[in-house]
């Protein structure tokens, strides 16, 4: 029985570890400036936790086999514990866990405490059951007012986000169903929701943030690779949650300018 347990626990442990180490399924290739830091911290945490996982599971398997009761087994070693050992492993675990945490927190701070760089491209993201809309403030750099009373999700576009067309700065506001972003430029995102909580998640951009009704949440990130990335809503928002899907196109600055100009032209 001891041997069967050892074999099963070791098999589970080694199989699980294999798929982590082989990266059969892993974080998708990153395409934003944060990738380097987030993936580095992930890797570090993974290595430390992986070692602890292997050490704990393999010794569990070994101990239950090694100390199984057999007629010839020696009497048990009568002990109520060892205070010195308790202090050692408490201290070690504390240092390890807190240290790991502090290492990751500078990344968090740079992303979330500081404002976006000057000259960042402004995009407002609005989530609603079950679509994403993106608004660019246009040449004046100002988002026009939106009004709840004007919101009409079934109409889509400007009407869906409740754009107040009587506001002069509404003239050059562009509202689209697909997000375009220039490469290597910081994005100053503001996130809103008209109904329930949604979450804007783009795995390749290493970016996730809830869109909460009643709040306007500012976030920033910098896409670094040209490509098309899928947005998946990550907060349960109702029956269409699974299909609340969108696309981010990261393009060159030139292509971005062309795209935005074309949208402005369409609007006129």
């Amino acid at each position: 029985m001891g041997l069967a347990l050892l074999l099963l626990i070791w098999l589970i442990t080694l199989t699980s570890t294999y798929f982590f180490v082989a990266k059969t399924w892993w974080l998708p290739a990153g395409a934003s400036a944060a990738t380097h830091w987030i993936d580095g911290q992930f890797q570090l945490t993974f290595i430390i936790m992986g070692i602890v996982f292997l050490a704990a599971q393999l010794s569990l398997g070994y101990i239950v086999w090694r100390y199984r009761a057999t007629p010839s087994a020696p009497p048990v070693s009568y002990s109520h514990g060892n205070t010195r050992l308790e202090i050692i492993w408490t201290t070690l675990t504390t240092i390890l866990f807190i240290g790991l945490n502090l290492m990751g927190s500078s990344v968090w701070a740079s992303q979330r405490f500081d404002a976006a760089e000057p000259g960042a491209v402004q995009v407002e993201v609005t989530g609603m059951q079950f679509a994403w809309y993106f608004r660019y403030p246009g040449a004046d750099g100002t988002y026009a007012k939106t009004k709840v009373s004007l919101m009409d999700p079934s109409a889509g576009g400007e009407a869906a986000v409740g754009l107040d067309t009587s506001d002069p700065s509404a003239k050059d506001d562009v509202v689209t169903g697909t997000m375009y972003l220039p490469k290597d430029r910081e994005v100053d995102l503001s996130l809103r929701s008209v109904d329930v909580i949604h979450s804007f998640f783009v795995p390749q951009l290493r970016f996730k943030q809830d869109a909460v009704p009643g709040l306007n949440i500012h976030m920033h990130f910098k896409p670094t690779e040209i490509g098309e990335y899928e947005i998946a809503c990550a907060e349960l928002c109702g029956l269409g949650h699974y299909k609340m899907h969108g696309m981010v196109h990261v393009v060159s600055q030139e292509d971005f300018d062309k795209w935005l100009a074309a949208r402005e032209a369409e609007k006129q």
Partner: protein
Amino acid sequence: MATPATVHSHAPQGFIRKYIFSLDHKVIGLQYFFLALTAVFVGMFLSLLMRIHLIWPTAALPLVGEIKPETYLALLTMHGTIMVFFVLTTAPQGGFGNYVLPIQIGAPDMAFPVLNMLSFWTTFLGFIVIIAAFFVSGGAPLHGWTGYAPLSAVQSAGPGEGLGADLWITSIAIFCVASLMGALNFITTTLDLRAKGMTMMRMPLTVWSWFITAILGLLAFGVLLSAGILLLMDRNLGTSFYVPLIVVNGQVMGHKGGSPLLWQHLFWFFGHPEVYIAILPGMGVASQVLSTFSRKPIFGYKAMVYAMLSIGFFGFMVWGHHMFMSGMSPYSAFAFSILTMCIGVPSAIKTFNWLGTMYKARIRFKTPMLYAIGFVSLFVSGGLSGPFLAQPVLDIQLHDTYFVVGHFHLIMGVAAIFGIFAATHYWFPKMFGRMMNETMGTIHFFITLAGTYAIFMPMHYLGMAGQTRRYSQFTEVAYQTKLLPLQTFMTYAAFITIAAQFLFVINLFWSMFKGPKASDNPWEATTLEWTTTTPPPHDNFGGKTPVVHHGPYEYGVPGAPKDYIMQTDPPTDAGHSDTK
């Protein structure tokens, strides 16, 4: 240590007072156990339907027919709610805590027997109410067990958000009331009804775990109850605690100025301690069983007690780690993250001590021991994904993905269930006077351990790859569709694992009537429940009050006549008269 306020020397006569509205903590414990057993099969059936739907989206299913996206969400909401409240909170604490705690401290019953009966029947009512949500117009709610507002607070936000959601929150409120009554009873009983010589530091670790769980319950369920009442008011009376000005289905709702984050704060202030409410009794049982079958004292008894106390203490300061992506102040994420890492320390200590207990032992592989070993393995696996999720910067990628689902299923789901399996096999002889079948138990253990790992370990891979949770289909997002083969593997693993659970039920009921007769102390254990007859008489000790002379885990004491000294054995020079 006060003497019991009431002495129940005469057992009640008549079926109804004896088995239905009983005041006997042992009967009430069994009632809780069978309620949880019913609930776990309902919850498991719902998960089976979900697993089938994920990989065969168009298949019509037994009892429910065609699965629409909202049906899937209703299944997951009810699965989570039923499992968390009516299984993981009900069986370890209400079931085994009720049955065993008074006997282990040498008391004739709980401090408040009528309150005890009331708390069971209130829990039962809560279960009826939540099941009713399936059958009302619109069906069960789709907002998940966490019920985030405004989705849960607005009747028109989706199918099931009408009467079904009202029943859901009402059921939870009823459950809170029942748990508050139960918690008071457990705390009072532990503090006041201990037998002579049963000092706090001689209490079995199971008693400590039920005691600390009761304190957590007393502090946490009150908050959830209040939060639930506010939610009912938002839903039905037009208040705006959780709902700002919003537009749903093109209609401007009548709410203004509420905060969706308020619900999350209140919910997780309950929700995180709830995780420990589910797992602490499992830790207690694992400690008890590991020591018994290792024939060795528990390694670091005091460290175990302090670890559980600090888990309970820190458990109330970490709720914000569920909200790193919620729009909560990023500064507070720092504090919540550090405190969450702190709670990992006592959890690690417990693991070290379990390994230390088995080190240089003589392990007897009886079924309770197998489940306790499984518990340790699952606790390690589920615990080590915690430090990933505790870091806000990694949560950016992992929050609301299958990584989280894998994490909490391993640790608060499967590990806690293994605690329940260990407890069932360990105390069954005392409860029913017969032994469970070891062969069936062993087979069930091996299939369930391998099977649950096969279901929940791949969830970590899926989560890293960005698979979002609570999706009824993976057909709409191209990168997620690619992950379907792994989902298919998990569904097949679920079929086998779920099928194996019938082995447990067959063993349970077969042994109840046909198992070999059990002696008073079949495991050669030391704690008070093994000093009394099997099954124990109505007042637990047949009119005698036990007197305690020893710590709870005196195994393998050098110089003692047997390899164990029971807590009530006369004082001796051999070993420690107290646990150091």
